[in-house]
Structures are given as C-alpha cells and as structure tokens.
C-alpha cells in the first residue's frame, strides 16, 4: 500500500516517561519515526510532540488513537503536508579554506537563503531553515563542491493551516466533564 509522510502532533502533560509511552506504540507496530521534536507548547505546563513517519492512513489513524488513549495525553492528531506549514532547521560545518577557495560567500547566502552562525580560521557554520528536500539538496551540493565536515538536521516543527486551535477547543470541550 502507498505510504505517505504523516505528521503526528501530540499535546501532553509534562510528566516523566511520556516519550517512552508514545514510542512504545510505534515500536509495537514496527514503525520507524522519521523525525521527532519535543518542546513546551504555548500553554504553560503542556508539552508538544511533533512526530513524522511514513505509513498508511489506516495505520496512522490507529496509532493516533492509541497515543490519545494514554492517560497523560491531552490531544493527538495527524496531518499530511498539505494541511501544514512546516519547517526544519539544518546546520552545516565547512572548512573555512574550502569555502574561501570556492569563491563568494555572498553568492552562497543569496542562493540558499542561509545565515552564517560562526566563522573562524578553521571552520564556518551555516544555518538553513526549510523543508527536508531543501536542506537535503544544499547538503548534497555543498558535499560535492566544498565538502561538509558535519551536518545536523532538526526534527520537523509544524502548525496547521486551519483556523481552529485544536488544543484550546479541546480544553474548552472537557470543561463540561469537570464538576
């Protein structure tokens, strides 16, 4: 069956061991997590996980329900790229000599929309934000031309294009259960 890249978003209480509870669900179904990013959300005390994986809609639906079922998970849902504005960030370490021999740094900056985070006699650290394909393409091109000493890419962060903030809706919705 055709596999698609899905982005799962999970809002949770900030409790010890939650990541383990979530990853167990992937492990049991032998699913590989492509990227994972965890950080505090806009609401104090609530954490947000963004997980991407290649799978089918049938499987992602079941996985999301099983995540949602864990006690300390507030809300879990999935999207495809069409529904999302998403971004990853990549860092590239390049030997300064090589970069200078290659020619203009200005050209590089204009071509890739990159930032220079650090520059010294030994190496330069470049930063590029973009989709996977964009950061990957730059990595491949730099590897061929100037060589890349180190390369690291973050997990995806994403926000939905819909007007509704699902977490606040959900928090509103559960008030009726509290008495």
């Amino acid at each position, binding site marked *: 069956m055709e596999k698609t890249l899905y982005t799962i978003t999970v809002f949770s209480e900030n409790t010890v*061991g939650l990541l383990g509870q979530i990853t167990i669900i992937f492990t049991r179904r032998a699913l590989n997590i492509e990227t994972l990013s965890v950080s505090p959300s806009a609401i104090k005390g609530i954490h947000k996980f963004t997980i991407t994986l290649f799978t089918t809609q049938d499987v992602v639906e079941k996985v999301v329900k099983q995540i949602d*079922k864990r*006690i300390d998970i507030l809300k879990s849902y999935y999207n495809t790229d069409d529904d999302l504005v998403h971004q990853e960030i990549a860092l590239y370490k390049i030997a300064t000599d090589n970069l200078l021999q290659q020619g203009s740094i200005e050209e590089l900056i204009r071509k890739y929309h990159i930032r220079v985070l650090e520059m010294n006699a030994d190496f330069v650290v470049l930063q590029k934000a973009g989709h996977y394909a964009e950061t990957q393409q730059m990595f491949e091109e730099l590897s061929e031309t100037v060589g890349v000493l180190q390369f690291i890419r973050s997990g995806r962060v994403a926000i939905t294009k819909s007007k509704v903030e699902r977490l606040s809706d959900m928090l509103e919705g559960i008030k*009726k*259960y509290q008495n």
Partner: protein
Amino acid sequence: MHEGVDTIFGYPGGAIMPTFDALYDYDKKVNHILTRHEQGATHAAQGYARVSGKVGVCLVTSGPAATNAITGIADAMLDSTPMVVITGQVGAALLGTDAFQEIDVVGISQPITKWAYQIRRAEDIAWAVARAFYIARSGRPGPVVLDITKNAQFQEIDFIYEPCTFIRSYIPTPEINPSQIELAAEIINSAKKPFALVGQGVVLSNAEAELKEFLEKADIPAAWTLLGASAMDTDFSLNKGFLGMHGNVGPNIMTNQCDVLIAIGMRFDDRVTGDLNHYAKQAKIVHLDIDSAELNKNVKADAPVHGSAKDTLPAISALLKPAKHTDWIAEFKQHDDREFEKVIDREVYPTSGEITMGEVIYKISEATGNKAVVVTDVGQHQMMATRYSKFSQTRSLITSGGLGTMGFGIPAAMGAKMGAPERTVIMFSGDGGFQMTIQELGTIMQEQIGVKMIILNNHFLGMVRQWQEMFFEERYSFTKMQNPDFVAIAKAYKIDGQNVSERSELDAAIADMLKDDKPYLLVVDVEMKGMVYPMMPAGAAVDNILLGE
C-alpha cells in the same frame, strides 16, 4: 481505606516493609491475604475484581516481586480488569544505581498498564493513590502500577486524602453523540437479519438489563465472546451461544450470513474473527465501545458508537422499532442440531469409553444449579468449561482471555471466592496449568478459602497436543506429562480431595465435593486424546469450522 478497600493480596519484602508494618495496625479493617507468589497475588486480585466489580489490590515489594507480578498485570490489561498494584522500590537516593532489588518497574509496566507512576516523596502518595483508583475503575478499566520508594514510605506527613474525580487529559466515559446513535438505530431498524455480539463491555458497565431490553425490543439474536460469557443467562431465548475459535457453530456461521452485525463492548479479537478478509463482509457493522481506539481497529464500522454500553444501549433502544425476526432466528437451529449431533452428544452424554471433559463440566454445572462462579485455567478445559457450563447470573465465568495465562486458575479462584463469599466457586484446570501456580494451595490452606478445584487430567498439555495432532502431523513434541499424585499434594496442604477414573464414581465424587464450603480437589482422569470441537483453525474464515469425525 479511603477507597473502600477491604481486601489486599500481597507478599512482603525489603522495599515494602514500612507499608506492611503500617498494615499490621489495620488487620481488623483490611484483610490481607498472603499468597505464595506475587503472580498469585495479581491473579487473585483479578479474580476478586472480576467477580465483584471492585478494584483488586496487590501489595508487593521491589525487583523480583514486581517482575513476578508482571504476568498478572499484563493479563489484567488485556482483559480490562480494574486493579491497583503497589510495588515497593529502593530509596529515591538509590534510584538508577542498580541497587539491591531495584528494577525499573514503571518502565517495564508502562506498555501493559493503563497508568504507571513512581512516587518518590510522601506528599505525592495521597494524590497518586486517588488517581490510581480513579483510573483503574473508570472508563475501560485496567491495571495501574504505583511504585513507591522506600523513603516515601518512611516519611511522615499530614495525610489529606481527596478522591480523584477528574483528570483533564482523560475522559473515561464520553458523552454520547446523538448522530452516532441515530445512524446505528437506523441501520438496525432496516435489518432483516440482525445479529449482536456481546462482549465484556456489557458486564463492566453493568448493562446486562439494558442489553436484554435492546435485544428483546428488536428481536435480535445474540452471541457472546469468551469474556462476555454470562452477560446473558444461558436459557435466555435470544442467546445463541459462544463465538470464536471453539465457539458454537451457529453464531460463527451466522456472522457471515447476517445483514447487520452489532458488536457491543467487544474488540473483534482474532480468536473471534478468524480471517478478517472473510469476516462479515456482507453485513453493515455497528460497533459500540467505550474505547475509541477499538473502533475501526480490526473491523471497519459503518456506524461506530463511542460510549459506555450502559448509556448507548438504552439510547439506541429508544429509537428502535419493535420487530420480529422469527424466520431468521429459526435458522440458527439447524446449526445447533448439527453441532449437537456431531460434537455435543458425544462430549457431554457419553455412555462408554473414557470420561470426557464435557460430561464432568456439565454434571458439575447441573449439581450447582448453574449458579456457581466458574473459574478456569487455560487450555482445552477452559474452552470446554465455557461451552458446557450454564450460567444464570452475570460475572460467572472468570477466565484469562486475552493473555491466555496458564496458572491463572487457582489464584483467580481464591480471589473470586474472597470477592463473592456467598457463591460457590468452581475452578477447572488442566494438569499443566494447575502446576504453574500449585503453591497457592498453601494460601488456600492458611485462609481456608472454600474453592472447589477440579483437575481434568489427560496427562498431556492437551490444547497443544490437539494442535500437534491436527496441524503438526501428530509430532507430540514435549506435551506428555508425568504427573504427581495431586490428591496427595492437596492432602499435604490439608485440603480434602479424591481421584476419579471411572464414570460410575463421578456423581458421588461431585456430591462429596459440594457437600460443604471447604476447599476441595477433585482430580478426574479424562480421555487422553480428547479434542475440543468445533474448531475454526487459526487464521481461517469464521464459517470454516471443523467438527471432528
């Protein structure tokens, strides 16, 4: 105490000693049962919970005690049994250092619990215990593990206990959705050949009466899963029997004949469905479940209904048009007749040859007026006990369904008797499973728990032997057992019993067993090559049923 706990099954040890020391002063209020193994404590708590509907409680120490408890915790998870297991843990300062009897209990138990939490300071005990009981018993019930470090047990604090009634990230019983109810009712009203599948959800939500009303109003025949057994009385006219691998022929065949299939509080386990590609493809599926992760998990529902059966059944019933499906219901009979002729007659009413499991079970069911709590171990006898016991009240079959844990029988029966002391508790086991938790005879002796234990002894691991005969060319690899003198072992534990190998002795032996409320062991030598039929082979279609010769 604040949660109304009056019975605890446990086993003391180093890291839980401060708690046991405190328990010493409460021996009049809390009945602590000292089992002989922590696995026994967990199964006993399960038996107690399943029969009473209350939360079963276990109290054990750290390390090996916690790992011994894991089997029962996993069993409770798969069978949705409310249970709180409290494990001791090394002092907080020693956590993560591989200290003596330290094990990562929360890490190990997370995949097999509804919630697992480590308490490292006394201030958190009241909060965590309240939350644990709330989570264990609410919604789809399940086991909770609380791992309490030794320092937290020693600290003295002002104890303020507030019961937990709300967790914002957890909505145990969702409000029902009227459009789901309407769609379900519309589909059921349009059905010519409706068929209902009854699972444990009905029992867990105490919706037996609501189920009966629902079925009677629209005249819907119904069958039950292993854990849904006894939700309907055996003699209820719309009760068409047991589903699945060793279930009755009618319900399995009719699953692929009906036009609307209504699943109530059940999860389409593979032992019920067989090959999903050939499962009820002709039917519209209505699926009622409290756990939304079960909806569309194994079988895609045309009308998923999220909610407790206690709420959803009456809501749907209110929209149902009274109906009669006399001809459709009559179609079950031909299958019942065929099953009686090919299987039941030989199994339950033999007149010659060796004793069969079915006849023992049937005789005991009759002798108890079909009122006993039947507890089983796992294997051939389990399927036979489910098939041939009759039930006249709910919560009457306590068995390990999802995990299929051999060794469940003896301790679960102890717990069941503690949870329903006024009822007769009959425990069927095989010669294999009995020896997996045989040490609990010590608990039965010490507490004088009046369970009636029956070993259906075929000197084999019978279910595996059956599969070897059917699917492995009769290569009986390590299934033959040389057994001890079980009655002599029982007598060493001061438990009365006898061994029966002749049909003519059976009635008298059963009468002797049931004459009082004391523990008793009846060992019956049954036919060695007995087979459980009907059988839907693993992975076969639900209507592909073998009936034997």
